[in-house]
């Protein structure tokens, strides 16, 4: 390379040892980050992104290999590297008990920003991040998006030549995400800064100049996002058919010959084919009329899935779930009216209303802190409501909490099974907790192990399971008593796209079997899997409807085919405008 790179790894290997066995976090990593560009480090949780970032900052010493940062040796001169780069760790590295201004002052002192230049730089950064009106507020009282921007401002105080951002956008609302990207690109243009940014959102890859794709500790590729998408050029199609539910359509397509991946996308199904060329409707969906197939533009996620699915066996097709749900019909099984929850002065959930019909997949979409989990906990009877009505399966949760709870299965946001118990022991425990005994219990445990493919891990302690299998086990535990309503709280957070697909295939099968599913997510594109959803922000419902209705609201001449994210951003902006108008009239 003739041009001096901003950051380069050469054959880097990193091993962590815990409890006797060594874990290889990164292996054979070699790449160079070109100066003056935004490079994305893309990969699911557990891929090794944070380890790579910490190595680049000299916070970890690699087991093997060479790392150069801005011409410095990060292995042997970590202090020099740490003095030169700007770094924002996960969770933004802010002191929540200090105000915005005090956080800025601290990092300005630490980074040696001269006193006379400060006022101008502060003003510039506060203007850029929109935090100017909040400088006296404690950082802990800021919203997720504002914290993220303050963290960024602190890392940018001295305008470093290399900026390292570790998952700056995870769990943050789409508007703030978009603003962050604008700030980052502004800095690259004005200051000639080089940026390395890690993210688990595959759609963000398309916003980078250059992409490093990391999976299970190995670098799968490096290149412009378009280079990745080009690999699947001519292999992406959108399929719709009448006379069949989109879920059943997806199930059939995923088993059709030549199909690598089938994904529900609104009312259509997105296909990634094994080879280029438009497939024939007759071979894909024999026996169906009115099948429409049209080519679609490839996306980064298509390329990612295509690369990985050739490595793995195509996920085994899931048969119908052998589940016995007695109740049928499509009456409302969950009713929420003007639900309210206060924590002291803070209103976490503010007059939320919606209802869910039997057999629906219903989504609660919103950023971290929107009130999704609080709503969920109230619905599960884990948290009393401060006001409003809510009933689940015909039972009022104010009066018949235990009764309602017997009808629901709950999968918590964090892995909440017993790490020291084996898979079989965990299942047995949850079965007995739901009152299943004797032969019935044996049957259910056998069913769970069989249905969720856990046979190989039967005797493994839950703690040692791979992430995707932990999620399967949690899912199975929530289904032991064959609940008619299933609550899934951020089930796909941090799992890779393949595990996510598998998860949704199971959820679809459950819905087909008559289970009502309520799911929260901060992945905007996952809203497409839901029959209906509400979009939440700051404890209130911004909109309710089908994915298609949501997206239709954002349709315009400039944007004829809006994504769910566009719809979300538009809703937030409308709300902010309404808020400002309200303030003006009040004034």
């Amino acid at each position: 390379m003739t041009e001096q790179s901003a950051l380069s790894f050469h054959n880097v290997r990193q091993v962590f040892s815990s409890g006797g066995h060594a874990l290889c976090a990164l292996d054979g990593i070699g790449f160079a980050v070109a100066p003056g560009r935004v490079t994305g480090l893309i990969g699911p949780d557990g891929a090794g992104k944070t380890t790579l970032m910490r190595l680049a900052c000299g916070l970890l010493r690699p087991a093997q290999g060479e790392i150069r940062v801005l011409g410095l040796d990060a292995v042997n001169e970590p202090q020099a590297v740490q003095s030169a780069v700007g770094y924002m760790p996960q969770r933004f590295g802010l002191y929540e008990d200090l105000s915005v201004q005090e956080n800025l002052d601290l990092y300005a002192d630490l980074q040696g920003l001269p006193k006379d230049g400060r006022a101008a730089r502060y003003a510039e950064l506060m203007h850029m991040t929109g935090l100017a009106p909040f400088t006296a507020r404690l950082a802990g009282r800021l919203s997720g998006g504002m914290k993220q921007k303050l963290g960024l401002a602190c890392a940018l105080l001295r305008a470093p030549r290399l900026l390292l951002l570790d998952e700056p956008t995870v769990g943050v609302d789409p508007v703030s995400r978009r603003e962050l990207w604008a700030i980052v690109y502004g800095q690259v243009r004005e200051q000639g800064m080089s940026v390395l940014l890690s993210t688990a959102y595959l759609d963000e890859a398309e916003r980078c100049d250059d992409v490093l794709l990391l999976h299970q500790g190995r670098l799968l590729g490096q290149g412009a996002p378009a280079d990745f998408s080009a690999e699947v050029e001519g292999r992406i199609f959108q399929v719709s058919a009448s006379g069949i539910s989109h879920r059943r359509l997806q199930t059939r397509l995923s088993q059709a010959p030549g199909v690598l991946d089938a994904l529900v996308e609104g009312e259509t199904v997105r296909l990634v084919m094994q080879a280029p060329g438009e497939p024939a409707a007759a071979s894909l969906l024999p026996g169906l009329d009115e099948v429409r197939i049209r080519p679609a533009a490839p996306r980064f996620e298509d390329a990612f899935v295509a690369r990985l699915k050739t490595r793995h066996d195509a996920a085994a097709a899931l048969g119908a779930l052998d589940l016995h749900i007695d109740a049928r019909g499509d009456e409302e099984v969950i009713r929420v009216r003007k639900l309210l929850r206060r924590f002291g002065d803070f209103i976490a959930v503010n007059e939320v209303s919606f209802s869910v019909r039997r057999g629906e997949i219903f989504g609660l979409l919103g950023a971290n802190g929107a009130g999704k989990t609080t709503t969920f906990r109230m619905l599960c009877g884990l948290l009393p409501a401060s006001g409003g009505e809510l009933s689940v399966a015909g039972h009022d949760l104010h009066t018949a909490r235990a009764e309602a709870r017997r009808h629901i299965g709950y999968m918590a946001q964090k892995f909440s099974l017993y790490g020291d118990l084996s898979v079989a022991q965990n299942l047995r425990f949850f079965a007995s907790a739901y009152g299943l005994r004797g032969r019935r219990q044996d049957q259910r445990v056998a069913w769970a192990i069989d249905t969720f493919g856990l046979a190989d891990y039967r005797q493994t302690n839950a703690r040692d399971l791979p992430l995707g299998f932990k999620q399967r086990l949690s899912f199975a535990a929530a289904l032991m008593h064959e609940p008619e309503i299933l609550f899934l709280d951020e089930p796909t957070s941090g799992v890779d796209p393949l595990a996510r697909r598998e998860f949704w295939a199971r959820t679809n099968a459950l819905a087909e079997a008559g289970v009502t599913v309520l799911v929260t997510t901060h992945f905007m594109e996952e809203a497409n899997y839901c029959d209906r959803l509400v979009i939440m922000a700051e404890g209130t419902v911004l909109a309710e409807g089908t994915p298609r209705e949501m997206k239709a609201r954002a349709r315009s001449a400039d944007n004829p085919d809006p994504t769910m994210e566009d719809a979300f951003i538009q809703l937030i902006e409308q709300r902010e405008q309404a808020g400002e108008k309200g303030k003006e009239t009040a004034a």
Partner: protein
Amino acid sequence: MSARLRRLWGMIRKESLQILRDPSSISIAFVMPVVLLLLFGYGVSLDAKRIPLGIVIEQPDTASQSLAGAFDRSEFFRPQRFDAIQTAQVALAERRIDGILWLRNDFSSRLFSGLDAPIGIFVNGVDSNRANITQGYIQGTWLAWLQHFAAAQGRSLDLPVAMEQRVWFNPALNSRLFLVPGLIAIIMTMIGSLLTAMVVAREWERGTMEALMVTPLHMGEMLTGKLIPYFVLGMGGMLLSVAMALFLFGVPLLSPFWLLMACSALFMLVSLAIGLLISIVTRNQFLAGQVALVVSFLPSFLLSGFLFDIHSMPEWVQTITYVVPARYFVAILQTLFLAGPVWPVVLVNAGAMLFMLVVLTALVVKKSYKRLD
């Protein structure tokens, strides 16, 4: 201001702001000392007073009534009368009383015939320490009355040995005077080790340590920046305790104030070094709290000689006390307050603390590097 000083100043200001905003820091530094001092100063006493004592007088007469009156007037006893020894023994067994003074019906005749002690004493030996004290007090009161009685009769008392005792440094044998200085060591251990260990571990937990590390800040600057505010906080707690000791409990300070401050500063540094070391090793608030409790707070409480006398511990426990820094500081405090600047005691114990400080600082410096692994 040089860049180095500015970074240090930035850290000090940040830590100070955090201390001021965190109610738990303030309460550990200022509320806890007050609570502990009030509790130990007023509530806990190692002296036996108002001992419930049963008195059985089989044949009331002038002499026996006079003896019983001596017990009634003593501040050490709260006597109750019983008619028969049997009922008194039942009361003793039921722990309603701690001892029995038994004056048989030949008490007066034996007293006048030859003055050979005609009284019977029972004590409850379950709490052996208290039994010894009770027995001693009963005998003391009896002998005092006997001398007084003999003088009134115009006779001299022929005892084989007449003991004359004098108590030094705490003439009133008031255990409060002895407990309160020791408490200052406990309070400073809490602020230095427990609080410091938790707040530094909090930085690891919340991920702010990572952000601090990737700045030009050097490890030494970070540690110093953390130490100074907590040092000030700890010395503040110490001054409050000293003020309470002097003005509320009337503990005398028989040494120069500067010497007390110098020794306290040395101990504060040892405590802070322990706290820092714990937080660096654990990196987790909960664990740091537990470890600080077990390796620092509890040993200071149990093994420093503040409450339990080191010389009466088994030899192997005594050996352990040598690694408890509070042991040296408690010895210094008790000496400085109650006995005055006894230089050999002060120098030997301060020397031990200085040695510990050097070892701990070396460990902290060795263990703290700007890496996460």
